[in-house]
């Protein structure tokens, strides 16, 4: 029961993230959207691993690795957004301007 809650929450997070990615052109929002998708996937991953009675340790190791990767990606992305905002004054990609 609780497992499917985790899985459904994960799926909902992914959905929210995809929506954010498609609907929002602001780069910072997009970065957050990516993080939401990633978190949703990790949650789903964890839930998938705990199906059997004895808990599988591998997904936990993988999730931790994945979070580290996601963190460093986000750091680079935010850094680039800041650099873009500094040099152009906007946090939008050139042809996405006017987006919400």
């Amino acid at each position: 029961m609780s497992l499917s809650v985790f899985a459904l929450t994960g799926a909902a997070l992914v959905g929210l993230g995809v929506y954010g990615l498609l609907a929002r052109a602001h780069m910072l929002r997009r970065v957050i959207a990516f993080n939401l998708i990633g978190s949703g996937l990790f949650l789903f991953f964890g839930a998938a691993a705990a199906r059997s009675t004895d808990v599988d340790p591998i997904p936990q190791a993988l999730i931790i690795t994945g979070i580290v990767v996601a963190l460093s990606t986000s750091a680079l992305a935010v850094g680039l957004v800041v650099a873009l905002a500094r040099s152009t004054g906007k946090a939008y990609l050139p042809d996405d301007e006017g987006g919400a």
Partner: protein
Amino acid sequence: MIALIAGLTLPLLAALASIALPLRARVPAALLGVALTLIASLWLAVEVWHNGPVALLLGGWPPPIGIALQADGLGAALGVMTALVMVGVALAARVELAPSVAGARASFGFWPLMLLLWGALNAVFVSRDLFNLYVGLELITLTAVALVAISGKAQAIAAALRYLLFALAGSLLYLAGVVLTYAAHGTLDITLLATRAPAPGDALALGLMTAGLLAKTALFPFHVWLPPAHSAAPAPASALLSALVPKASLLIVLRLWFEAMPDLAAPSALLVLASLGAIAVIWGGVLALVQKRLKLIVAYSTVAQLGYVFLVLPLAGGDGAAQPWAAGAWTGGIFQMLSHGLAKAAMFLAAGIYLAAVGSDRLGDLRGQARALPMTGFAFALAAVTLMGLPPSGGFTAKYLLMTAAFASGQWAWAFVLVGGGLLAAAYLYRPLAALFAREVARTPRPISRLWQAVPLVLAALSIALGLLSAVPFDFLQIGRPDQAAEGL
């Protein structure tokens, strides 16, 4: 086995050294790292040549608990190609990314990024674990995006961000597929997955992973990020981005379809992927034809050239049992990856020389440069021969093998793509060549040292040599070859 470990750790150590050491020692340390990693890559290839695939279980744990690394002919060959390109890029970057030329920021950032990229590429080439491949891909993406943005110009940062968006979307799709695979089978090891009991979600997992990898490979219709990103970077970085980075995701596509889940290869799926590849060949060629800047022509050509590799999927095994070219299509696809890597690196490095010499890469400004910089012009021409697929280059060997497979299996429609793509390549590469060869000189060039000019020439000559001496690389690629390469999907 030591060579395998060295190929993974030396670039990372050198990357650290090129950040942490005092300013004067950074570039020498990076160059030392380049030299040592080159030796390790060659050594690994020799080891594979003599003893067959080199395997390593991390920490001694066998899969599914541990992670297996294995260098087969395919991985080791890509490793050698990468090493050769890296050496060329490093030699060019010594001049082109000197602080006095490129600014302190770019010249500081380039070396660790390049070395990190190398380490990540080598990791992808030898990994047998889908999650390990994910980490490698992410590291490649991070360094590649940073390389695009390294000049700090607004245009470059925008290109880098767009690239990052595509790459991240690709990563998440791939990751979703990995999660589904693990949920169904409890393992991510490629060898174990090949023997798994099929589960209903496998097709979705493979589809997600493939889609993610396509976005990273810039296959049509995911190609829009590539040309601006590849042309925004300094030339040595462009060479890395175009020649090497897409090869990692391509390799994973091949590993997934040929090694991990060949049983899922439905004809319709292969048709879709190969059709996307075919469209990429044509559309990339057409777009390259209308560009006015050399770097953009070369970048769009990457979109086209990568498309060929996807023709391997339906053509593999289309060899006819009696013919001498078993596994021809599969090997041909890899020949395409290798020769494109060498030739494309040569082209971008040549473009860098022109940029340094005349300060522009517009075709109009490049008119007449063949006379002032004959070696560079010759290098560009040799690389063009490879990309056009004319004999006796590596590109020709690739196309020949793919075409024989297309005819032997009766799928000659793909041969139209091969021939048409070659003619398109001739058309879009003819324009820069004709401009370079013109009599009148548009701009008087700055002198460029012969050593620097020799770098793209050697890389281009290697891409030709790959065709002239194709017997050895062909045999090398058969080491550890999956059965499906010969039997077909």
